[in-house]
């Protein structure tokens, strides 16, 4: 397998292309498990609805963008959403995902995140 090393990517018209620096999907129900990931060394089950994600390699600074997603579990009555916890110090390697129910209670779900920097 070959590796392409390049500092930046552009379209033919000069528009920048920005790739995710890290991503993961996590199933929190039962024993938490990483469904798939890239540039993630571990997750930490930190309680119901909480997952700390640690990247394999640090980002240059901690002001990166975290794009989250949540899958709906169990039909229409269980609308969840995922946010990044503000009461947790996001570092260049670690951030905390919180899956919230429609009543704003931390609850287990299927969550994911992508990092752009």
């Amino acid at each position, binding site marked *: 397998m070959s590796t392409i090393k390049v500092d930046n990517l552009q379209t033919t018209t000069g528009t920048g292309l920005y790739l995710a620096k890290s991503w993961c999907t996590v199933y929190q129900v039962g024993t938490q*498990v990483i469904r798939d990931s890239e540039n993630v*060394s*571990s997750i*930490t089950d*930190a309680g*119901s609805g909480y997952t700390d994600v*640690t990247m394999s390699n640090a980002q240059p600074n901690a*002001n990166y963008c975290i794009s989250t997603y949540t899958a709906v579990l169990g039909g229409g009555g269980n609308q969840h959403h995922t946010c990044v916890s503000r009461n947790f110090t996001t570092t260049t390697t670690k951030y905390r995902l919180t899956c919230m129910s429609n009543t704003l209670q931390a609850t287990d779900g299927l969550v994911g995140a992508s990092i752009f920097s």
Partner: protein
Amino acid sequence: MASYRVVYEDPDYPEEPAMVLIPSDRWLSAAMSGKLPPISVYWELQDDEQKAIDEGRHDSFKHDLSKWEKQFTAPRIGELTEEEAMEYLVMKDIPRRVWSVEYNRPMFKIVKIEQVPSNRQFRNAWEIAQ
């Protein structure tokens, strides 16, 4: 697939339940294939960032580029067994205060997957069994 988990409690947050660290299969595979840099590369970055947090300048903090690049350029340490990889992961991903200080009881344990409960009804009350 990883056979182990790490259960730990953070002495700085005694009100939080026990944490369970789950390794990434991709990372574990890289570790067992000898693709990791020395752990000191990550510690150096963590030290710089912690200093910025302590001094209240984390919002504008940027890693020193030469130290940051060592993640990719430092000589690799060679193949690890799964047990060695778990010990490396403890030192990389768990706060240093958890594993580098001696307390009057163990603050972390590396356990087999089957030792971690799958029933999460009382998840927020989990503690490490002594």
